């Protein structure tokens, strides 16, 4: 699989009813890379993802996949290139892992076509990649949170899309499983060149795992670029309304945000701002 697909938003305005959530947004997703979208609650992160998979029609502007407006592409054709894992998908009671992962093959099947060898291979590869092969015959509701999330990712992999959009893939997971999921997504990106776009809540994990960081505030693009360019104390103040220090994470070399609350801070916030270890102050 080679990823040459481009995904971009052009003067995109989105909203529900009277409320405008995203206004006049221009955004380019770098192909073959991992993009993380961060921002405060209700800044329009998930809404943007919904528009990219045409769950939500834009008020104006458009989302372009390879230069074509996604809202004019046939549904199944789009689903063969662009996959989506929503924040809380539903696992039908009693469904087995293999059955669930197999449903990722939907866009590759016609009304009358039968389950093919290709479908089998795709499901097996997806289980293998997420290390869920041994769970294939288990019921999804019996699994732990971390296992379940791996199974959902396996389902998205079985769809075999070059672009994968994930809405908060780490919510409800404890920290070790968060890392496990993000490592898995990074493996995919490295091994297959899958372009990954994910909404993440945790700024530090976003900075750590993304090649390209997009910060939204109140439906507008605040900054986009490499994590060290985007994640600055200034950015955290504007996007989250939070005073912080940004230092270099000694384990990854990526920026690491340390919030300054009103308590438990050793020195006055003002004194240290700017002279921290973070480069782009």
């Amino acid at each position, binding site marked *: 699989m080679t990823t040459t697909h481009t995904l971009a938003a052009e003067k995109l305005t989105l909203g529900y009813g009277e409320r405008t959530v995203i206004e006049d947004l221009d955004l380019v997703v770098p192909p073959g890379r991992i993009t993380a979208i961060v921002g405060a609650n209700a800044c329009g992160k998930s809404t943007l993802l*919904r528009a990219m*998979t*045409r*769950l939500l029609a834009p008020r104006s502007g458009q989302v372009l996949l390879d230069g074509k407006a996604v809202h004019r592409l046939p*549904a*199944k*054709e*789009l*689903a*063969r290139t*662009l*996959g*989506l*894992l*929503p924040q*809380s*998908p*539903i*696992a*039908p*009671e*009693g*469904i*087995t892992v*293999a*059955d*669930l*992962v*197999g*449903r*990722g093959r*939907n*866009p590759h*099947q016609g*009304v009358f076509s039968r389950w093919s*060898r290709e479908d*089998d*291979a795709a*499901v*097996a*590869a997806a*289980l*293998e990649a997420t*290390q869920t*092969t*041994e769970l*294939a*015959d288990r019921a999804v509701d019996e699994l732990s949170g971390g296992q379940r999330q791996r199974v959902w990712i396996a389902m998205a992999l079985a*769809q075999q899309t070059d672009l994968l*959009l994930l809405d908060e893939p780490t919510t409800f997971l404890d920290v070790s499983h968060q890392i496990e999921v993000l490592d898995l997504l990074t493996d995919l990106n490295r091994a297959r060149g899958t372009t990954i776009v994910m909404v993440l809540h945790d700024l530090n994990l976003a900075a750590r795992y993304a090649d390209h960081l997009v910060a939204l505030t109140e439906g507008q693009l605040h900054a986009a670029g490499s994590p060290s360019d985007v994640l600055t104390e200034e950015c955290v103040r504007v996007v989250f309304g939070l005073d912080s220090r940004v230092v270099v994470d000694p384990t990854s070399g990526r920026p690491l945000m340390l919030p300054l609350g009103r308590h438990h801070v050793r020195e006055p916030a003002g004194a240290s701002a700017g002279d921290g270890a973070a480069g782009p102050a």
Partner: protein
Amino acid sequence: MTSTGTAPAPDAALVRRPGPARVLWLLVVLAVLGALLATSVAIGSRGVGWADIVAALGGSSETIGEAAVTKRIPRTALAVVVGAALGLSGAVMQGVTRNPLADPGVLGINMGASLAVVAGFAWFGLFSETAIVWTAIAGAGVAAVFVYAVGSLGRGGPTPLKLALAGAATAAALTSFVTAITLPRGDIAESIQSWEIGGVGGATFDRIGTVLPFLLVGLAVSLLSARSLNSLALGDELAAGLGERVALVRGVAALGSVLLCGAATAVAGPIAFVGLVVPHLCRLLVGVDHRWLLPFSALTGAALLTAADVVGRVVARPGELDVGILTALIGAPFFIWIVRRQKVREL
């Protein structure tokens, strides 16, 4: 998690769906249905000897016994057809709404068909079989749209309980309308009443022939929706991500299910709970894949209604108990069991 290190090729065979159990259950259900068909022809409120049964199957209706059996044949056929339609309709409805409580009876859709037909009887001189079918389907459609709209009001959209409540309230209202229309009309009350309780007793092959085209279209539409229903089961967002046009798919599948239960109601009156019980039973047997679940629900529905009809003929000898009453007797406790057992959230 450690990788077992097996090559992916044998895994491909491993992850194939467990087919044998399903095939086995399929054979079991077919065998049970076959046995029930034989029983339904052989047993009735009048005891008939084997010679008469054989003669009647050969087309003779000279003795009383043979005549009784001759009447049982279309009756059995009707029970099969109506049961299949209701079982399938319920399975599709549960899939479309992701609601374990969905059923043409519970959601008030059969009563919609009922009211339309009764109103037709009373005011429009509706006595042609085809007109009854069209009227019933239209009534079912209107009731389905109405209940879905009411159940979707407020926060959280159409949750299972809201939908069931909207359906129950609508059914109650429609039932009282039916009563209001029927009571002052002594001339038609009796024919309406027997139709309304739900019965297959008055079956003729002509009546079956009238509804059959509608049922076949409903069957085709429903079965072709199976794969889309599988996607829909994962949530609207994921279904859209898997390339389904969610609103369209939902509309088409709902149409198929309304055709089925509307036509079934037109010919046998409102029969509740078959559409509720059967899909749950089938999910236990063959799992949640609609490509198996839907045809299975049709077969099991046919078996259940045939069984109910046979039991109804036997328990109240020399009279008969209508199937509608029997399915309600089985279905009501079952309904309570589902509500109690499940976190009645979504399928």
